[in-house]
Every structure is written in C-alpha cells, then in structure tokens.
C-alpha cells in the first residue's frame, strides 16, 4: 500500500524546495488583490510594511493599500505609531513573509533529505511525508480547506466537507490538490492561476503588524498564542514523530530508537534545524520559543506524539508488518542478538517466545490509528524485552545460577578446545561490561562537548538583538582561542551513521565474538524437544498497577539481581531509553507469556516455578 504521488520533478526539487515552501502558503495571505502587475504581469502580491501591495516577482510597489478589515483590533493610533517606528528600525532585518508552518515544513524537508542520505527510499520524502504534511495542514486548517484558520481566528468550523475521514482512498481531492508545490514539484511561480483559484483568506492588517514586531514569521505571535481544542499544534519534536510515522508507513529499517540516536549524533537535523532556513527567513521574537530546542528528543515522548499525530491526521491502517519486515520482532531480535554479542542459537528461543506471546501477529504489529485504542508496538523495545525474557529463561539471572552455569561451560570449554564452545555467561559479561563502560563514557563525553547554540543567534526583540549578537561573537572568539589549545587532530570526528553500535571480532580478546557459541550447556534433551536446564523463573513484576497513573509498574533497581540490572542497563543504553521503560516492557511480555499465572493465582507471590518446554 502506498500513497499516491502526483508529481516527480526531482531534479528541481532539491534546489528550489525552500522557495516552494514559501510559495505554498504565501497564497494564503495576499491574494485578495488579483490584478496583474503592471510591470511583469504576474499576480503575486505581497504586503509592504505600510500595507501597500508589492509584486513578489519584480518588487514593484503599487499605490494600492490594503483595506483595514477590522478596525476594532487597533487599540489606538499611538501604539500603532510606535510599532511603525520599531518596524522601520528593523527594516534591514526584513526578509520574506513566512509562516510558522513553513518553518516546520522546511525542517521536515531537511529531515527527509537526511533520511534519504541514510539510505531510505526517496518515496518516503516525495510521497509519504509529503502527504502526511499536507493532510496535517488541512486537518489543522492551515491550508487546503475551505476555511483556513487565518480567515476567522479562533472560530474555525469543523471540516464538514470531509465526512469520511477513515478512508484515505476516498479522498482523491486531497491528493490531487497537490499538483502545486512543496516537497515535490517546481514551477509554482509559473502557474499563479492555481493559487488564485483557491479560497484565500484575508489577514487583518493589525494582526500582521503586531506579529511582525515580535516575530520574524508572519504568524509567530498568533501561533504561540493559539490554543484550539482538538488541534495538534506543530512543534519541533513533532517533526520527528512525522518522520517516524513515515518510516513506519514505508516499513523502513530504521526504528524510533535508531532515529533518535541519529538525531543525537547529528545525522538528522533537529537541534538548530532553523539554522539552515533560507537567509531571507528571519527568526526572532516568538519564533525563538517555537523553533529553538535545548533538549534531545525522548523516546516515550516522541512515541506518544506519533500516536497523537496519526490519530489527529485520521490516518488509515498502516501497511502490514509481516514476518519478512525489519520491524517484526523476529528480525529485530536477530539484530539485537548480534548487537549485544549473544549466540545466534538464542534466536530460536526468541522466536518461540514471540510466537507464544502473540506479539508477532500482523494485527498486533500493524499500526491502525483509527482503531478503538490507537497504539503501535514499540518494536525495538519489545524485541529487546523478548531477549531479556529469554536470558531469564536460560540463566534465571538470580546472581547465582548464571555463574554456576558459567563454571560448567568454562570447564567444558577448557577440555574441549576443538569443539564449538559453550556459551559462557561470565566471559560474555566481562566483555560486555568493559565495552559498555567504554561506550557509555565516550557517550557522556561527547554529550558534554555538544555545541547547542546556533551560529545564527536568536533574540527576543530588536532591543536585545545587539546584546545577543555581541555575546555570540564573544563566545565564538573564546572558542577560537581554546580550540588552538586542543590537539590539531580532532579527537571526535563525526561518526558515520550505523544501526550497530558495537562490533565484535574473534581476534581481539576485548571484543570476543560469542555469536557462534552454543547453548548446549544450558539446554537438555527431553524426548524429542530441548528444554532449558533451568526450570525456575521469576517475574519482573508481580502485580501490575491498576490505578490511573498510566505506568503499569515501577523499577526500583536495588530490588533486582545484579545480573538483571546489568542486562537492563545494557539494553536501555543501546536504545537510549530509561531503564524503567524497558523493565515495564519486559513485564508486559511476561504478562503475555505467563497469562495463566497472572489470571489464576493473583494471591501467590514470590517466585513462580515454571517449566517451559521448547
């Protein structure tokens, strides 16, 4: 299942896209004046500071000035005069008239481009993300609808003309409407008629005036004040939710945790993404609050936003996640088993757990935003949780059994040097612990060295502009000075993006590879099937929280065995998530695996005894 595409002039798109971003929404504001320009005959009008029309293609300024629609919005003339004064001062700073959503569109564009260089297919950008975004503009009534939000502030009616939101295909109008601009096409300027045919709103003069004082964008002030019920407002973190939805739609081989890690490693524009806006898109004032970001994205947060946006966009059921998809737990388990250096043989066991818990079912895995309870699997977290459960099944992880099994394996390996070695948990732990500590240390160091501030400083108003710029200059100078004291060879070059963070080889004793080791030491034959030697199991959560606090369990580290803590730490570092988050997922897998245990004997506490046959 793919989304329809309407155009594909890819050659032009990278070079001209930013301009198109402007174009897509410019139409919204200034088209009520429809005469052709006397100089170049184009119909593309912008407003000058004085409220006069000027031609955006040849910059010819007319004598016609904009009618003031709503005089009530101008409180008194004095304020207006002050505003004008400010504006004149700022005139050098004047760039294009742009809207906040155009800014976000630009960020999405950059992110899509970055994903493309990471190897994601071009359809993601040209079709999926593009359509999602247009749908968003429509749903949030910013464009492509009869009553865009800019016409009647705060009183936007519900989209009555879209009775069936559920069926994507029944809305050809939305899709075909996109013969104009944005992500895909070029040449919008040559088809001004497309714009003129659309219903374009009128902007109140007063509004645009106040707005331009406190923000570089046209609607920055209004945007930050906008609090409409039922509208999901665009934010910078939500751009990532968009990307992730598009990746999911395309069933790409990038999980949410990968995406966020790439953001942190600067492979995907996020922090200071506004830096790459075209020179003419000026940002200041309220734009700062909208576009400046001082935190890395957080898994849980983006995950929630994904669902929220998908629901808001009323997206149809996503393409099925089947067994041959990367996001299927069997695939991801294989990937993470390799990543954390566990024997390939374990994959067999993870597959069985996946089967028994039913988390490999298409219906379970496929995201359906219009289902009653919209939720999507946390594919990566879930796969990792399956591995944790399998480790518990094999080694119990009670700080005891895993070590005695290791002793047996060690003895066997010493005696049988020719054979395929038995997996030795202790050895694995030693190798992993060392690698993990090193990785963590490096990670912390790189984070501490992260440069957050953009080269383009953002300021609140023209008053603090000079201060902010001076401060920026000062920091740059000081940085220059200290960088001369640093070794000329940069110690931290930008890592090339990889979905693997560790790398194991047979040669290096510190990086010993355990992939080929066998599980013979921990399995026994029983009749036809193999059974784990260990017949015990303990549940990560005895009782689930049933209150309204939204989390199902808590994770108090010290209550758990050291091995379990290590494993949880290792995996949550890999995914850059909180340990409690992974623990919760492990508990949820166990809940599915030991259904009977939970439903029958709720009273029984302490360790449950359970033998599992494979």
């Amino acid at each position, binding site marked *: 299942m793919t989304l329809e595409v309407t155009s594909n002039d890819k050659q032009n798109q990278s070079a001209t896209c930013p301009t198109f971003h402007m174009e897509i929404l410019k139409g919204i504001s200034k088209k009520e004046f429809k005469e052709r320009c006397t100089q170049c005959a184009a119909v593309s009008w912008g407003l000058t500071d004085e409220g006069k029309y000027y031609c955006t293609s040849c910059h010819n300024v007319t004598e016609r000035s904009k009618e003031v629609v709503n005089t009530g919005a101008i409180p008194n003339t004095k304020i207006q005069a002050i505003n004008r004064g400010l504006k004149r001062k700022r005139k050098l700073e004047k760039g294009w008239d742009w809207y906040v959503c155009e800014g976000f569109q630009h960020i999405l564009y950059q992110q899509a481009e970055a994903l493309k260089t990471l190897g994601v297919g071009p359809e993601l950008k040209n079709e999926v993300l593009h359509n999602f975004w247009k749908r968003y503009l429509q749903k949030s009534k910013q464009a492509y609808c009869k009553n865009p939000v800019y016409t009647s502030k705060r009183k936007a009616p519900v989209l009555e003309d879209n009775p069936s939101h559920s069926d994507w295909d029944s809305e050809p109008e939305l899709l075909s409407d996109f013969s104009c601009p944005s992500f895909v096409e070029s040449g919008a300027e040559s088809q001004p008629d497309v714009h003129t045919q659309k219903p374009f709103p009128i902007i109140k003069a007063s509004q645009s005036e106040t707005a331009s004082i406190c923000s570089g964008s046209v609607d920055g002030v209004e945007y930050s004040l906008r609090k409409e019920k039922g509208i999901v407002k665009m934010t910078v973190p939500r751009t990532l939710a968009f990307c992730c939805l598009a990746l999911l739609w395309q069933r790409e081989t990038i999980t949410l945790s990968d995406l966020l890690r790439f953001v942190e490693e600067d492979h995907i524009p996020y922090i200071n993404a506004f830096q790459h806006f075209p020179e003419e898109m000026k940002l200041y004032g309220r734009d700062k609050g909208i576009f400046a970001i001082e*935190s890395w994205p957080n898994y849980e947060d983006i995950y929630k936003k994904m669902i929220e946006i998908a629901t808001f966009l009323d997206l149809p059921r996503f393409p099925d996640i089947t067994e041959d998809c990367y996001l299927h737990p069997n695939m991801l388990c294989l990937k993470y088993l390799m990543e954390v250096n566990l024997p390939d043989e374990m994959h067999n066991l993870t597959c069985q757990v996946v089967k028994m818990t039913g988390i490999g079912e298409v219906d379970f895995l496929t995201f359906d935003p219009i289902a009653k309870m919209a939720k999507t699997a946390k594919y990566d977290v879930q796969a990792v949780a399956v591995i944790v459960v399998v480790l518990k099944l094999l080694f119990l992880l009670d700080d005891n059994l895993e070590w005695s099994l290791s002793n047996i394996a060690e003895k066997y390996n010493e005696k049988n040097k020719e054979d395929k070695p038995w997996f030795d948990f202790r050895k694995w732990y030693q190798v992993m612990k060392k690698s993990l500590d090193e990785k963590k240390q490096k990670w912390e160091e790189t984070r501490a060295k992260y440069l957050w501030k953009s080269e383009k400083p953002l300021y609140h108003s023209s008053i603090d502009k000079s201060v902010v710029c001076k401060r920026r200059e000062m920091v740059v100078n000081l940085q220059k000075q*200290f960088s*001369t*004291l*640093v070794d000329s060879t940069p110690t931290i070059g930008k890592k090339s993006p990889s979905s693997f963070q560790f790398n194991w080889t047979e040669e290096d004793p510190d990086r010993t590879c355990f992939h080929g080791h066998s599980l013979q030491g921990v399995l026994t034959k029983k009749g036809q099937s193999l059974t784990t030697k260990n017949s015990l199991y303990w549940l990560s959560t005895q009782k689930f929280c049933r209150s309204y606090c939204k989390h199902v369990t808590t994770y108090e580290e010290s209550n758990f065995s050291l091995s379990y803590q290590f494993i949880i730490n290792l995996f949550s570092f890999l995914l850059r998530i909180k340990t409690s988050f992974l623990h919760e997922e492990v508990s949820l897998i166990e809940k599915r695996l030991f259904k009977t245990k939970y439903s029958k004997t709720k009273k029984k506490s302490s360790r449950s005894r359970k033998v599992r046959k494979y």
Partner: protein
Amino acid sequence: MSDFSEELIKSTTEDDQGERCELSGTGMHFPWLQKHIETVATGGKKEKDFAQTTSACLSFIQEALLKHQWQQAAEYMHSYLQVLEDSDSCKRQAAPEIIWKLGSEILYYHPKSNVEAFNAFADRMKNIGVMNYLKISLQHALYLLHHGMLEDANRNLSQAETWRYGEKSSSQEVLINLIQAYKGLLQYYAWSKKKMELSQLDKDDYAYNTASQNMLDHSWKTSVNLGALIQIPGVWDPFVKSYVEMLEFYGDQDGAREVLTNYAYDEKFPSNPNAHIYLYNFLKREKAPREKLISVLKILYQIVPSHKLMLEFHRLLRKSEKEEHHKLGLEVLFAVLDFAGCTKNITAWKYLAKYLRQTLMGSHLAWVQEEWSSRKNWWPGFHFSYFWAKSDWKEDKALACEKALVAGVLSGKGCRYFRYISKQDHQVFRKKIKRMKKLVKKYSIINPGL
C-alpha cells in the same frame, strides 16, 4: 596567584549573592541545598539537556584540571563557553567568573599557552559584564608579575584603577583599593631597588642627589596608594610592612607607629599575630620602654603562646620589677613547652630550669604548683618518658641535663627521665649531673622531706 585568589573568593561570595540568586546571607553555605531548591523551584520540571550537558561538561573540566590534563580541559572548555549564552539568566551571569577561573588555570599551565594568549583571554573576559572587570584585572596583573613583566602589570593596574562603572558598590571599592595597593607594592619594589642602588653610591657622588630625589617621588606616590587600603579592616601584611619601611626610611616615626598601632589594635581588624609582631619589632627598633614592649607581647602571647618571641617575652618579664610579671614569666615558659614543636628547644628548657630554681628560691612554690597542677597528668608522658630520656641523651646531652633537672624538680627523684639521666656516666657532664642531683634534692616540689 593561588593565595591571592582566596582573598578574591572571599569578596565574591560576599558581593555576588544577589546576582547569583544565592539564598544564604548568614555566611552558612550548603551547596547541595542550593541545588535542591533549584529543582523544587522549577516545580519538578525536567532539566533541559542543555543544562544537564553543560554541568556535566563543567565536572569534566574540573576532573581534567585535577588530573593536570590541560589539553582535555581545553577541549571541554571549548564547549563549556556556551553557558555564556544560557537562557537562564542566573547561570549566564554566574558563568563569566567560572569561565575566568577555569580558563585562566588552563592557560596558566597549558604547554601551548603563552602570555599573549593569556592577555587576550583576560581582556575578553574583563569585558563580559561589569562585575568582573576589577577582579580579572587584578588577577591578570598577578599573572604578569609571575612572569616578571612588572611594567605590563603596572600598566594593567593603572588601567583598572581608573575604571569606573556607574555607582560603585562597596565591594568594588575594596577592589579598587586593593588594586591601588598592589600598584603601591610595585612602586615599593622599584623604590627598594633604588634604595639598594643608593646604598652603593657615594654620598658625595653627583648621581646621589638625583637618585634620592627619585626615591622621594616614589615614596610619595606609594604612600598614597598603600595608605587607603590599610585603613580598611583586613589582613594586609605585605602592604603594611612595605609602607612602614618607607615611612621609617624618611623619618616619619610617628606615622609608622600610628599605622602599626592601628593595624594591631583596631578591633575592626581580624586578629592577626603579625600585626603585633610588626609593632613589637618597630618599638624595639625605637627602643621603647620595657613596659610598652611587654604590653604588646602580652597580646601576642594570648594569640600564639608558642611563638618564638615568647622566649624574648620571658626575658623581658624576668627583668621587670613587678612581681606579677615574674609570675607571668613562668607561665609563658610552661606555655611554650606545651607545644610539641618546642620540645627540643634547649633555650626554653634552660630558661625553665633556671627560672624554676629562681622562683623556688624566692619561695614562690605556689606559682610552680599552680602551673604544674594542670600539667602533671600529661607532661611526664609527654616530655619525661623513658623513651625521651634515651633519645635526648643520645642526641643532645645538654638538653637532656636541663630537662632532667626540670623533671626532677617537678615530679621528684622517682621520675624516669631524671633517673635515667642521673645514672649516666659521662666525663664532660659528670659535674653537671652531680649539680643537678643536688638541686633536685634541694628544690623538688614533690614531698621534699622524703
């Protein structure tokens, strides 16, 4: 640089409180509490990653400095400079000082650093905000002094001296005085160099007059610079010392006396033993009456009873006519020997042996008993053990004899120390030991009858 920075820290914690939103005003300081309050104030709102990474960066710098990894420190510093752009104005305002302290440390030690780099850094940091200009100027000057660049340091101080920004806060006034005083100190240095030159010249030499004229000029300027600072309560030893030296040189004894008296006796000044020592030495040079000298040392005795001047104090008291001074003389000796650092001071023991005899001869047994009663529990173990007897005899026989006499007098013939020494047979000391035994027999305060 190091001991000076302490002074600065003191002044900063006092004046920057408002600016850094510190809560304590009572002088008590709980760093963890501040952090705690901050998190409470934000209503449990998650700290931004920016704040988190910059504070991690700060600890990495501190760690690197601790391990003398200047290169790494510089690397982290490069990133830490971002806090100057922190959106949290509290942190932003506190940043220049932290950056200055860490940055100057890095530039001081980093092998690739040089004076130019340090100068450039200092000049930049001076002009971030207004609160740090003077402090940084002063430390900058000290750095230049370290590198023997006296003229540059002087120029720097002159610049800082004339710097004004709006209404000076009181703390800034202290800093200006301090800057002037350091300038004065530099002038004193030049002056005393000239003095050296002058002392090598012949008085009849033509050059002598110009040189002495030069010196006069210098002294006038210096006295202006130094005079202001030492009016303010504080510990200004090097400034006071050089100021007094110059005053004395030009014969202004009254001025010098006034400065020193004020420095020692003004209650607003922190208690400072050196103040009394300077005054005492000055009065001694002046040949002041004994009574006056005693009164100065009495105060020093209260502050530092183990000071080496205490033996001199004892001599003065011994010579005095007043009986209470004689009693104090005994006290002073006992007090000196209370300190572990003085246990091998032969003069002190000699004085005590002699003075005990004298006191007992003068039938002031009560004085001795009074001193001894508080010490009889621990002095035998502290001074008169068998171990000390052996080692003292081995190292310094004269000392051992004096100590043995004191031990015998104070804790009787049974005292281990006395017994060990009195059993020794030595050609040179035979006579002395014999005399000692006799004296002990005569004066011992322990049951003389038995």
